[in-house]
Structure formats: structure tokens, C-alpha cells
């Protein structure tokens, strides 16, 4: 099982803080990998926040393939950050030959296109690059979106952090929002794509626990949207459901909870909005989750969300100070980075709650 965490801060913070959040929870994961998605980034990317940022790990040939593709499709590279890596054989990391973090300018013909068209372009480009690299196992594309950076690697999280200089407070890499987890070993194959957080069109999601309705979710989602693919991890379906509810249907956030963990029929019948809730339960029965899960999500506007399965079989806790809100599977993680917070304000979300944390760190507890 994974331990998952997220930091939302008024001031941009380094990835080191995310590591300090996760490593105390080591008893609950197996230090088999490290994955992190940062949003609202500062440091080297400060001046390119509106330009799509490609996060990728690949071979040398993979870089060439991507270069050719991007050039052919009118993307112009405007910035690049090449991490200064520590090539020490004693480090436990299965490093890829190249790590690419690049900002691009949209193709010229997209200058006056709508936001939706741009979003579709970024998704289609990521999927095309992924497919291109997959053909001969030349690498992985994790995200391609403005102001979003993703790092994933197999190995010991501490060593991975050393490899990328993430322990340094060099302020090259800072973000106000970080979603993180320290495990690569999934129930299925060890594939970099299988490590959370997962990303799709501005939506990021981390989840733990077995998804016992994975087959149902997957079979349904596969025909809902072209971006719902891969399925290397059974938790990807949580992200796709979130994207479907918010991005495709444009329904209010609480309905995400209603759809993945619907209320029992007899409870629905007693409610004033029973007609709506019954319709959702009927129509989206295949998006229900029915296992033990905790979920952390990050929305395009930076809002963080958190909820659990309907039986609350997985732990999760939310704590905050005036300048930072943190979500973690275990409270020891919070104690590590927010030791002086008022613990009486810690929130242990119930099985029928959905937590949102907005950019002012205002926490809303939505009751299902």
C-alpha cells in the first residue's frame, strides 16, 4: 500500500519538504520509488508559467524523436531545465538517460484558439509523444501543461532526491502545490506510468489502496474519453473519474464524491435531491469505487481535494497553519513538517466527506 501526501503553501516550497512529509511514513510504503507533481512553480520556471511545460524521462533517441515531433507540429521550445544529476553508483535509482523539462510556445496557429482547443492540443500532443516513445521503449511523458512539472523514478526516494539535488534548498525548483508519494511497486508491473501522481489536462491525483472495481471502471472509462488510457495502475481510474465529473460534465466538486462512493439506496431515498442522486448512481454505476481508498487530488486552479472510500478503510489526515495546508496518509508526516501547528484543527475526513483547500488555504468540508 502507498502512503500519499500533498502540500499546499502560500509561499513556494522546495521538494525537500515533500520528502520530509513522506519519509516518516515509511512503514506504510516500501521506498521503491518517488513521484511528485508540482503546480504553481517558481524557481527556474518563474517566467514561463503560461507556457506548456513538458516533463519527460527518456533515452537519447527519445529526445530526438520528441524534438522532431514538436518541430513538425509547430511547437517552439523557449526554455529548458536540465537537472544536474549526481551520478553515483551507490545511489539506488534506476535512472533514465535523459530528463527533459521544457517550456514550449504554442504553435502559431493556436495563438487565437480557445482555451479548450489548447487543452485538447496539449493532451493530444502528450498522447502522441507517449505513443512515439513507447514504440521502441524510448521513454515516458508524464505531463505537458503550463506550470506543472512531474518527476517519477524507480528507486529509494532519498537516493532519487540526492540524484536530482532535491535535498538542496537551491531554490531552482519551488512550488506552491506539491502532490507526492514514495512507492513504485504496484500490484501490477513496475512501470513508471503506474506511479502516482497521475496527470490529465490540469488534474492531478494520488490514491492508495486496491481499486476493487478497477475492471468495471476501466471498461467504462476506456470509451468515455481518449485521455482515459494506460491503466497501468488501478488508481488511474480515480483521476479519470475526477476529470470526467469536473472537466467533461462540469459538475460541482461534491458530485465527484457522490459518483465514486454513492450513498446507499435507502439514504438516497430519504433525501430531497434523491432524483438527482439516483440518476447519478444509475448512470455512473461503473465509476463507483468499492474498495479501501484515500484520494488526494489537485485541480487546474490549484484547489486540493481529499476524500476516502465509503467505509473509511484507508487513513488520511489534513493539518494546516496560516501559511500551509498538508494532507498525508499518516499524522507522523504532518508532525514532521508542521510540528507547531494546532493539532486540534487537524481533520480526519469521514467516509462521507470531501475536503477542498483553496488557494487562500481555506478548507471546506463538504458533506455528502
Amino acid at each position: 500500500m502507498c502512503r500519499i501526501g500533498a502540500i499546499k503553501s502560500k509561499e513556494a516550497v522546495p521538494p525537500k519538504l515533500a520528502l520530509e512529509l513522506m519519509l516518516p511514513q515509511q512503514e506504510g510504503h516500501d521506498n521503491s520509488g518517488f513521484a511528485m507533481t508540482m503546480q504553481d512553480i517558481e524557481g527556474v520556471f518563474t517566467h514561463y508559467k503560461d507556457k506548456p511545460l513538458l516533463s519527460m524521462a527518456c533515452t537519447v533517441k527519445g529526445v530526438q524523436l520528441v524534438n522532431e515531433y514538436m518541430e513538425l507540429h509547430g511547437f517552439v521550445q523557449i526554455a529548458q531545465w536540465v537537472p544536474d544529476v549526481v551520478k553515483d553508483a551507490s545511489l539506488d535509482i534506476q535512472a533514465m538517460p535523459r530528463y527533459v523539462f521544457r517550456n514550449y510556445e504554442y504553435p502559431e496557429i493556436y495563438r487565437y484558439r480557445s482555451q479548450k482547443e489548447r487543452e485538447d492540443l496539449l493532451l493530444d500532443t502528450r498522447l502522441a509523444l507517449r505513443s512515439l516513445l513507447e514504440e521502441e521503449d524510448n521513454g515516458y511523458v508524464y505531463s505537458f501543461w503550463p506550470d506543472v512539472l512531474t518527476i517519477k523514478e524507480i528507486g529509494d526516494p532519498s537516493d532519487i532526491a540526492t540524484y536530482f539535488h532535491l535535498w538542496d534548498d537551491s531554490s531552482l525548483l519551488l512550488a506552491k502545490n506539491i502532490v507526492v508519494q514514495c512507492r513504485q511497486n504496484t500490484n501490477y508491473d513496475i512501470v513508471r506510468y503506474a506511479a502516482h501522481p497521475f496527470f490529465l489536462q490540469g488534474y492531478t491525483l494520488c490514491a492508495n489502496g486496491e481499486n476493487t472495481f478497477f475492471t468495471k471502471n476501466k471498461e467504462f472509462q476506456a470509451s468515455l474519453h481518449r485521455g482515459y488510457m494506460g491503466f497501468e495502475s488501478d488508481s488511474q481510474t480515480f483521476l479519470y473519474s475526477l476529470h470526467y465529473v469536473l472537466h467533461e460534465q462540469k459538475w460541482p466538486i461534491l458530485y465527484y464524491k457522490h459518483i465514486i462512493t454513492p450513498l446507499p439506496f435507502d439514504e438516497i431515498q430519504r433525501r430531497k435531491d434523491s432524483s438527482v442522486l439516483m440518476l447519478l448512481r444509475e448512470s455512473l454505476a461503473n465509476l463507483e469505487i468499492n474498495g479501501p481508498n484515500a484520494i488526494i487530488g489537485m485541480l487546474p486552479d490549484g484547489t486540493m481535494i481529499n476524500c476516502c472510500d465509503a467505509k473509511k478503510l484507508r487513513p488520511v489526515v489534513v493539518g494546516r497553519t496560516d501559511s500551509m495546508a498538508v494532507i498525508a496518509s499518516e499524522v507522523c508526516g504532518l508532525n514532521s513538517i508542521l510540528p507547531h501547528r494546532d493539532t486540534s484543527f487537524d481533520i480526519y475526513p469521514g467516509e462521507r466527506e470531501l475536503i477542498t483547500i483553496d488557494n487562500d488555504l481555506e478548507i471546506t468540508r463538504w458533506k455528502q
Partner: protein
Amino acid sequence: METVTIHDITVNDLDWTIAYQPELCTLCGSCVAACTFNAIEVTAQARTTTFSETAFPKPQKKRQTRPVIRQKASLTDRCVGCGMCEKICPNHAIHPVFNPHSRKNFISSRQGPPRQGGRSNLNRQRTLDSIVIGRISQMTDPALDSERHTFDLCAPLGRVLAPSDLPLSVEGDSLRLVASVPPVRWIYPLLFSDMSIGALSTRAWEAIALAVSYLNEECHLPVRMSSGEGGMPLKLLTSDKLQYMIIQIASGHFGWNRIVRALPFMRTDPAGILIKIGQGAKPGDGGLLPSNKVGPHIQAIRGVPKTTLHSPANHQGLYSIEESVQKMHLSLNAAFGFRVPVAIKCAASATSVAVYNNLLRDPYHICGGFFLDGIQGGTGAAHTVSLDHTGHPIVSKIRDCYQAAVRQGLQGQIPLWAGGGIGMTGQAAADAFKMICLGANGVFIGKLLLQLLGCVGDEYGRCNQCNTGRCPTGICTQDYRLMQRLDIDTAAENIVRYVLTFDAELKKLLAPVGNSSLPVGRSDALLSWDADIAAKLGIQYAC
């Protein structure tokens, strides 16, 4: 050598022979009186005995004539193995024995095509028994406790809309319904299948209806029952209990005059309407109620004279699926103000996927359920040749339909209900769970209900005389004397207890896979010992 008339029928030519022990028999005559098939008779047997009453043998001869019980060597009055003689005999002096050397099939056609009731006696294969629930929650996720956790076991009946078609608008933080949607009922995933008053005795039908009421009102399980073709008593049509009933319309439209006339007086809507196109036991055949079962009360309910009632093979005027949708579905929906789901029942067939595809793509969104009945389903009366040699197994057919829907992203929009052999072994919960994992929303049972009522028929040739009107258990007859054999309260109680056990067992299967709601389409929970079955159904093979 003596001449033998080999074409004469002897007892050993029949399916069942009577084992009779005269030394135990008290000659009370109960067995003869109880046998509804007139298969045994009291007769006299002459015996010559040689004996000696002295130490040194002095043989004497005595000739006695004694009354005995004897089986008739007759096709029309043959023993069917029902065992009523054994049930009633106070001294265990008599019982039927299956005769593996029977020549019945070779001689019975002398009377025309043989008919029978019950299930196919030829197709006893059990695909479901080579499937086990093998994905058990161990360390990946916690198994649930079937007695402590709450479970949410309901299945839809009604047309479920695609999420993109939901008429919802956002108002602030809420969604609001802005147009009407097709009715969907969430009911218990075990549905009592369509057996008419006529096929069943009024007492048997009443016992099932009583069990349904009890299950709903006392046990809070929303079990629904289909009326079968042939209408319902007016009193029931105009009572609150109608909410538990799914009214069937089949090709003979029997009983619908009364139903239509009762519409203005209905106090509640029925649970659904089921259009019967065919049934698994005898696909391509219409319903059949032999005249000997058309008693005066059946004539009254159906509005017919005493004659054999043979429903047409087809609904008159329906030549295509589109017509079915536009004529029958639409008119029945309209009749009940679009408040009642209208579903369709077909015999499983090589064409089922095509039918399901057409219903799924129907632009009116008006079909509220696809009931598929497999070859192992039962019937009140059929030609034996149809029962044994026509039809389609249900397991792979349900899976085919579900997978066809998955390929189009339409799964769940028209609920799939599976029947035909569910609970053949007595363990309907396991069958239901497996069918649900393969894609069914729920299952329906018919023959199993009769067996719970007390029916002794089985798929090994025992009894199955539902078509004769001489049902020895009073279940499939309209003979008042026979009906009295069925104790309504006990029969209803048997069904209630079985469904409560079913509910407990279903939870016992849900708990180890970690689910509290029905795992429809969760094929990863299943595996099969049989590689061919695993490959066909798209589940794991294990050995």
C-alpha cells in the same frame, strides 16, 4: 419355444418401476389413492404355495388369492417417479426406482410428440460449476465481514441514461433535474420469474405472491415477481401489492382485457411490464396451457373458453426489433404514463447480441431491461424435443451481451437479467454472484421456486408432468383436490427462508472480494478450471 408378444408394453419399458414389498404392505390403499397418475392399482394375485407341517416332509399345496399393489404397464398411466406413494406409505413398503433400461422414448411417440414440463432432461451441463470466485481480498485490501458490514444489494429495472444524456443543470453547488427521465426501479437482484396462474395452481401462485409480500414488508428486501402470461386477479390489480408485481404480456395477450380495464382503478403502479418474446425452455414456441388445466377460474381470469390455450410463436404484427420498440414498448409505456419500466424477455439465442445491440441503440431510450432465458430454464408445458434440443446456454450469452455493450461504452444502460438454470443445484446465490460478475444486473428464477414450494420434479426425469394437470404436489394443477395438498403458508415460508439464506450467502460471497455493492461486470473476481470456458468468458484460467 413359447411365443412372446414383444410389442406389448411391460413395466420395464417405462422410466420408473415400482419397488413393492408385499410383506411390509398393510393393504391400506393410501398409495393407490395418492397416485395422481393412476400408475398403480390394487389387484389380486394368485399364489400357489407348497408347504409341510410335519418334521418329515409331507408336501401339501395351498392356493391363495391375495390383494397386492401392482404397477400398470401403460404409457398413459405410467409411473413418473414422483414418489407420492412413498411419502404416504406408513410402512415403507413402496417406492419408485429409476429404470436406466427404459424404452419409453422409443414407444411414447405412438401417442404423438411427447410433451412435458420442468427442465430439459438432456442438458444438465453446469458451466457455473467450473467457475469459482478466486479473487479474494487478502493483503491488497481488507475482506469485509458479511455479518457486520452493510451491503447495498439492488439491481436496476428500467432504462438507464448515458451520463451525457442526463438532463441536469448546475445551480450553484448543486445539480438540478430539468426534464423527465425514464423510470428506473432498484429491486432485489433475485427476481421471481414469470409463471402464470394457469400454469401454476392458484394456491401455488398465491404462496409465491405471499412470500413476495412478506419479503418486502417484513424483511425489507425489494423482491419482485412477474405475473406470467395470463393476467392477475382483479383484487390484486387494484391493491397496493401491485407495486411488487411485474405484469407480463406475451404473444397470447391473455388476461390483458382485465388488466386494461383495471387501469383506472389501480391504486399504485406495478413494478414493471415484461414483454415476453420467448422463453429459454422452448424458444420459438408460444406459451401452452393444455385444456385440462383451464379450470373455470382460469377461464374467468383470461376470458377464454375451456380449450387448450396456445399462444402464438410470435407477437402478432411485430416483424422487427424496431417495430417492437415503437409499437409494444411505446404503447405499454404510454399506458402507464411513462412511469413504469417496460422490459423485454427473450430466449437466449445466437441472435441475442444483435437484439441487445438494437435495443441499446434505440433512439427512444425506452427498453427498460433485457431478460435472457437460457436453455436450462423450466416450463409448464413443452414438446420434449423442444425442451431437450432447442435453446442456448445462458452463461456465455449474458457475457457476450455485456461485452458487446462494453465495446460500445453502453454497459449498464439496459439492465441485463439472466435466467434459465439459476439455482439448479440449490445454490442460487453462487450462481447469481457469478452471473453478476459476468455482466448480469440480476437473475430470475422459476423452477427453483417450484422446488421450494415442494415440486419433486428434476432434470433427471422425475415427474415433470406440469403439463398434465395431475401435478402430485398441487403446484401445477387446477384440480381443487390436488391443490389442497399444497399448504400455502408452509410453501410461502419455504420461499422466504430460502431468499433470506440467499441474501446471507450473497453477502458471504461479496465480503471476501471486498465489495458491498453488486460487482456487475467484475469479471476479474472469477476464474475457471476450464481453459475453454475461461477463454470464452474472458476470465482467468486457473488449475
